[in-house]
């Protein structure tokens, strides 16, 4: 993987902005709207997302209800806007947990010796064998039914992804000649990590964060779709989908609205990840040029999961 990317980026000008490509600009625009809705969505909702209107069931989009109404006559647009906060914040909760639990040992493992490295890798492997949704539902059985509880295990299961990416990138930079030079000049490990490693690993972490946020958002949507962690009147993206599914014969178009919202957000996050990746590989290529590529790292990255 890595080798191909660096190869494809070879012709590209170095260090251009993440926003250089139009798809990245669109993605950032979409994510800005989602972020805005996360903060203000509940306040700006045109109608009360919980208000039941028995005379207005399953109405299609109209001037009064821009995205129609649901099986209780509630305004779908308002419900989606109000539901954004819970979906996005819990997704970010999981990503935050994964980021901390993954990147810190990912960087540390390179500097702490073989035993720690072996143990950390086995823990990551073990976590990778647990399917995230299954595990999240199982944890709600143990800790009680709540979305915040359910997203902790999702975050823990995102950690191996962060761990592997960070470890591979750190290994690559920690073996570079300038790190060797810095060590010979008497730099401390903390200094090397801070100045020579962390800064160069950041683009890789950014790529992973964007794609992991997409994964976490999907997990939230699916968990709320299953009815994990939310009490019925409260609106969530997945919950709206699930109630739409129950009334398909009355309103077959209804699930497309929340479905599209989820797909667009996830697509924007993936596009952002791609933009980070392009920029990151363009930048690191130049920095890495005088260094002999450690072959072992690339192969290790490539061999899948349990191997």
């Amino acid at each position, binding site marked *: 993987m890595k080798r191909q990317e660096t190869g494809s980026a070879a012709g590209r000008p170095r260090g251009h902005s993440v926003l250089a490509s139009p798809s990245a600009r669109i993605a950032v625009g979409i994510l800005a709207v989602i972020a805005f809705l996360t903060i203000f969505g509940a306040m700006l909702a045109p109608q009360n997302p919980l208000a039941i209107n028995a005379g207005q069931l399953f109405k299609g989009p109209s001037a009064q209800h821009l995205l129609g109404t649901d099986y209780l006559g509630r305004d779908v647009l308002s419900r989606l806007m109000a539901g954004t906060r819970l979906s996005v914040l819990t997704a970010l909760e999981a990503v935050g947990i994964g980021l901390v639990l993954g990147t810190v040992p990912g960087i540390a493992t390179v500097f702490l010796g073989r035993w720690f490295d072996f143990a950390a890798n*086995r*823990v990551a*492997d*073990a*976590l990778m*064998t*647990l*399917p*995230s*949704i*299954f*595990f999240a*539902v*199982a*944890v*709600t*059985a*143990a*800790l009680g*039914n709540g979305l915040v509880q359910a997203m902790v295990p999702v975050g823990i299961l995102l950690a191996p992804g962060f761990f592997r990416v960070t470890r591979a990138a750190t290994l690559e930079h920690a073996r570079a000649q300038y790190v060797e030079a810095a060590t010979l000049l008497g730099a401390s490990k903390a200094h090397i990590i801070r100045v020579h490693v962390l800064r160069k690993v950041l683009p890789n972490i950014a790529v992973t964060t964007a794609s992991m946020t997409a994964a976490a958002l*999907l997990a939230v*949507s*699916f968990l709320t*779709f*299953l*009815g*994990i962690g939310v009490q019925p009147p409260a609106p969530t993206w997945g919950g709206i*989908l699930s109630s*739409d*599914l129950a009334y*398909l*014969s009355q309103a*077959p*178009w209804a*699930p*497309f609205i929340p*479905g599209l919202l*989820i*797909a*667009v957000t*996830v*697509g924007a996050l*993936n596009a952002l990840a791609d933009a980070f990746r392009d920029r990151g590989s363009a930048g690191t290529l130049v920095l890495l040029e005088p260094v002999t590529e450690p072959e072992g790292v690339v192969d290790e990255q490539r*061999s*899948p*999961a*349990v*191997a």
Partner: protein
Amino acid sequence: MTAVTLTRTPAVAGPAPRRRRARAAAARVGGGLAVLVPIVFLSTFITYSLGALSNSNPAATILGQDAATPAAVAKLDRTLGLDHPLIVQYWHWLTQAVQGNLGQSWFTQIPVAQSIAQRLPVDLSIASLAVVLAVLIGGTAGMVAAVRRGGWFDRGVTLACSAVSTLPAFVVGIILVVLFAVTVHLLPANGYVGPATSIPQWLKYIILPSLALSLQVAADIARQLRTSLVSVLERNYIVGAKVRGLPYRRVLVRHALRNAAGPALVVLGNDFPQMLAGAVAAEAVFSLPGLGQLLLESAQTRDIPVVQGLLLVISTFVIVVNLIVNTTLNWLYRTDDGLLA
């Protein structure tokens, strides 16, 4: 290197190298197992610890509110072995699990292994049909796209792949229900019939869930296959085969596809273990009586033994399939052909 690939494909080999390779393969499996053992212990320990995390009182739950006197609870704790330290309990649970005993449900007293065995065929059906569909759809799309590179079909495949990769399986499932079950009433929107009752009925019920589950993998396969096939089709030995006057179809399948299939197989191998877990999504949309439903029910009632048993079965499945997939891929691509080295 090109000449070697032309004259001797990996499948043709003398007996001596075959024996050597068998030994190498055995060594690789052995090495894999050495890494596997700690993984198995860790992942099963995490699974078992869920029960301890839950700070629920199993004895009181089983006895019910009236009968749960402190003396009765203490007695049941002893019979269940709950008065031992966690690690001892874990070891007991694991050794029992290896013998096929996963304990019994706290509420229904039905053995966990029995309820799992009852539901497993549903998910296995969906997952295996999904793999077949993914290979068929993804393989065809990727191959045609590579052959007709730059054409409208190629662009369509690229577009469809990026659209599908943003859609989670459960949303795809809902879209399929709307298209095939609600709008045209072609296929059932939910329910399940076992293959023992009627094979056509069985297929009818699992085709939509399988399709929902397969599309993402199909997109991955199509993308990988297109990329590697495009680069293989430009190699000298393909040109050579064409120059020798071999029929194009034969060149495509015997020469190009065989050498280009590696990355697509790796993608399939990586996605496959997760498919049984992904079947939960399909189950939820199509309300199939599978493992996912069992998990949701037991999570609601906090029936810890069932939850632990389910997690154990699923993660074991993932580990075993991963091992098989990796070994197979290593064996298939043991020669250094520059594709999967």
